[in-house]
């Protein structure tokens, strides 16, 4: 995949999961103010083994197994951040983040605006479907939080970005929600450089250049979009594929630059349709690039339903390369 490693060349190929683990390991190594809290993150090494070995190296005080109490975990992390710590909180599955919705949206997110209290903390966890996790282990709840001023929301698609953005999130002075698409954990590998690096929060990346239309996507759907772009290329349609990487703040500049070039925009996300980021992007394009559009903004998203369990149902629910291909072809005709 072009552009996914930021030009680094002397690194090694690692999985998405390994990238998360490396980021936490290196940040804890670098800064004793970094601690990890979550359910089963210590002894067990996390449900997906993203924190394997951290307890053994950094000890009980820094790798904290918690009760099943999402509100308490998030609240405690916020309190820790007030004393200058930089806690990383793992939600065992990101679906459970809504158990702490009030803590995040009312306490953590509003502190800096209201009383000048920064909360440098990261809440991360496995998200997304395609692994038959059913309605409570497959969610993409990012938009609940993109609607919350004061948070930053990251949803990477490559090991390079996952590692660099997670490190950037730990060093950021604001609360950052970090979504890790679990479909990618062990399915993709990517190159990361040997040394320390970060990826800037709030910057999208052009993954494939093209001139006929722009496809905006992120996380697992970025890969599906690239697959569709290859098929489109065979029919002479060159799609520019952009990885949003950060959803809040959104990189309007990169989006507008591309759409002003291609004049057509398709948004692909695994989140459900109503209230998804595509709607926000449509509004931005209407406000700032209306005259540049040669066709309607189109979107390929999951259905407006809970994530169903049966493979046949889930496949029908999720976007796929074929659906993206059809929508892009339709858009290209304008």
């Amino acid at each position: 995949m072009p552009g996914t490693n930021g030009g680094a060349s002397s690194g090694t190929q690692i999985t998405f999961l390994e990238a998360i683990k490396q980021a936490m390991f290196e940040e804890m190594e670098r800064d004793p103010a970094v601690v990890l809290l979550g359910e089963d993150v210590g002894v067990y090494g996390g449900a997906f083994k993203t924190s394997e070995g951290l307890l053994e190296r950094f000890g009980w005080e820094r790798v904290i197994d918690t009760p099943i109490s999402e509100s308490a975990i998030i609240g405690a992390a916020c309190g820790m951040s007030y004393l200058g710590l930089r806690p990383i909180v793992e939600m065992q599955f990101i679906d459970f983040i809504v158990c702490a919705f009030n803590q995040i949206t009312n306490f953590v997110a509003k502190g800096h605006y209201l009383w000048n209290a920064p909360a440098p903390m990261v809440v991360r966890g496995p998200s997304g479907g395609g692994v038959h996790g059913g309605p409570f282990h497959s969610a993409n709840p990012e938009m609940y939080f993109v609607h919350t001023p004061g948070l930053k929301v990251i949803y990477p698609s490559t090991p390079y970005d996952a590692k660099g953005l997670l490190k950037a999130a730990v060093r950021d002075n604001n609360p950052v929600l970090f979504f890790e698409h679990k479909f990618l954990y062990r399915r993709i590998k990517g190159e990361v450089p040997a040394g320390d690096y970060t990826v800037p929060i709030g910057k999208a990346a052009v993954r494939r250049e093209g001139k006929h239309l722009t496809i905006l996507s992120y996380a697992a759907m970025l890969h599906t979009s690239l697959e569709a772009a290859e098929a489109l290329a065979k029919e002479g349609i060159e799609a520019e594929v952009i990885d949003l990487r950060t959803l809040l703040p959104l990189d309007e500049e990169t989006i507008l630059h591309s759409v002003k070039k291609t004049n057509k925009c398709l948004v692909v996300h695994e989140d459900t349709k109503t209230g998804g980021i595509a709607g926000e992007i449509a509004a931005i394009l209407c406000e700032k690039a209306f005259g540049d559009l040669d066709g309607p903004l189109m979107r390929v998203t999951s259905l407006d339903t809970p994530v169903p369990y049966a493979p046949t149902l889930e496949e029908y629910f999720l976007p796929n390369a074929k659906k993206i291909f059809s929508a892009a072809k339709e858009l290209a005709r304008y």
Partner: protein
Amino acid sequence: MKKELTRPQYLDLYFYMRLNRAVEDMMVKLFRQNKIVGGLYSSLGQEAISVGTAYALEKKDWLAPMIRNIGALLVKGVLPRDIFMQHMAKYDSPTKGKDGTSHFGDLDNLHIVSPISMLGDLIPVMTGVAMAGRYLGQKIVAMTWIGDGGSSTGVFHEGLNFAAVQRAPFVLILENNLWAYSTPVRKQVPLENLADRAKAYGIQSYIVDGNDVVAMYSTAKQAVERARAGEGPILIEAKTFRRMGHAQHDPAEYVPKEMRAYWEARDPIALYEKFLTGEKLLDAKGRKEIEEKINALLAKERDFAENSPMPPPELAETGVYCTGDDCHKIRAKWERPVAEVTPPRSRVEAVWTVPGFGSGKGSGGARAPIHFGDTPPVEHTIGNEAKSTNGRKPAAKVAPKKTVKPGAASASRKARR
């Protein structure tokens, strides 16, 4: 009341209770003059709790007030002008008009965490403050307050349970003022003593007469010292009564007359004045001096608040994010060697032990141990084994009979019927 403090301490408690009441009296006037933008919540009759408990904290300790803890803020060093300006939404207020009431804090100097309106949320947050303080070696205690109504929230239980398993140096004051807005405590909690909540978390608890400032102080002092020594979180139930409605708009007609009369006769300031006079710690002259001092101070503080402008409208757009070091230099203040929490000293052996079931090496390779045994993490850092063991004994309520007048319980029971 028992004599056990120094004279200046006794007079401090008196001064702060009077100041607490005077600040709130002045805000009632400001409210009636339409100078207070939003709601006004009263702690009339509960001053002994805010003042007595906060007075037990050291300067380095952290607190997070609830809406009726103006007294705690004053004890911690907040100026009355800040409280006035918060309510009046003034530009010079701690939140520059972005929030009101006691919703403000000070991370750097006073160590105050701002509350939010959702009840119970401060409990895990202050647990985190306590854990971080312990981790950094600061030997601090974190304190917050909750009401009888707030003890029904999920986050109250999640937070207290987490504090308990972490044995965090945290003290929670449960102000049982018998009313959650219009709902009596019996419809909130099926317990006579809310301190019994502590049993569920295996932590220590006390029951105190919330209208007795000396009892409040002494108990809180004891709790703070025990928490600081590593005994884990402590819950203090203060039995009291909310003399005003939920806020200024609420005449609280749902409160039985007998109940109100009982508690009005037990005004904490009047009770304390009687004690101080009896002990010859305060006479009419001393009382007058304190009154004059407070009046002069508050006139000045009110003028300052009234003269502060409203915030400029465009301020609304600023400050959502911390922009980095230029905005906040975030640094943990280490008061223990960092080497203790970094490799190699932070390393934990990949060996598990379960009492009665033996021990072994972690499975799944050296880097994937299945169990590390059940060594409590806290005792590594606090090193207070003897006291920790003591702390595990069943909840010992300190002199509840002595501190809670039998009349208090029967009056509330009567009023509930």
